């Protein structure tokens, strides 16, 4: 069971909804992040993605308030990876601010999910090879048991 706490981005960059789109773009560039969380009294009210910024620039909107995405889902750090992955696929929600005791502690985006999936894949491959090795040894013992040498040892 993979908890959100272990895969979330901890350094969430926040912005006020009264900031300009240009400021948001500069913040993304200086902090090297792709999403900003819009907070109001410590509560996440929206998430701004790179796409929101681009849409804002194309339609000549000035403020973060006019471009921010309202489609997000607040999750707890104890939530599981599979639960979120279901919301991602079925509801097409891509941003998950992580809130604990009313405080914003992290953010999960699609990129974090892909990275986590990549790591599990690697982990599963190792587990699979260990299982194969164990069964391999069982079979080797089986053949040895019925061989003349094995028979003389085990009677």
């Amino acid at each position: 069971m993979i908890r959100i706490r272990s895969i979330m981005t901890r350094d969430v960059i926040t912005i006020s909804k009264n900031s300009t789109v240009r400021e948001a773009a500069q913040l993304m560039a200086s902090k090297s992040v792709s999403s900003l969380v819009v907070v109001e009294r410590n509560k996440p009210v929206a998430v701004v993605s790179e796409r929101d910024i681009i849409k804002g620039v194309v339609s000549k909107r000035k403020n973060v308030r006019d471009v921010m995405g309202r489609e997000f889902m607040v999750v707890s750090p104890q939530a599981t990876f599979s639960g979120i992955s279901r919301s991602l696929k079925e509801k097409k929600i891509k941003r998950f601010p992580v809130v604990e005791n009313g405080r914003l502690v992290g953010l999960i985006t699609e990129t974090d999910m892909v990275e986590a999936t990549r790591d599990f894949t690697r982990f599963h491959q190792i587990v699979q090879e260990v299982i194969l090795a164990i069964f391999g040894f069982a079979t080797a013992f089986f053949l040895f048991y019925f061989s003349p040498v094995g028979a003389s040892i085990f009677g």
Partner: protein
Amino acid sequence: MARVSKIMLTGVPTLKKEAKIGDAAKLLAQAQVGCVVIVEDKNPIGIVTELDLVRNAFSKGRSLKESVSRIMTSPVTLMAPDMKLDEALKIIDTKKFRRYPVVENGALVGLATKKDVVNAISDNLRFHRNIQNIVLILFVLFELFIFVLGKYMPQYLPFGI
């Protein structure tokens, strides 16, 4: 193992390298794919992603009339449609990009993303793992059966010990 052609996105927006940043922004605001491939005679020479636009153009206050070639990522790593997914994953692990134009006979045919490759491999692995484990368990049960038979009722074994 599936191939890149099975998971790649088609209909990727393209622009010539003479195009302006504003054109790329307009395409990206509408398109479902998060990038525009910059082509020269159908041959991809660079890529402009949402990240390039926001971090290299908007944040620095570049004019939307400047050429896209100033903010594009170039050269790009290409993939072939008949490439196996685990080869693709190896490239992704070493290159650290998220998007790879897929080229056949020198022309752009699609776009492979890290997300699609990783998800396809993960689903594939889960499916194969279940089958493999069932086969292994049946095999070991069979071994155990022969083992017990050979030990306690050797007369029923078709071969002697």
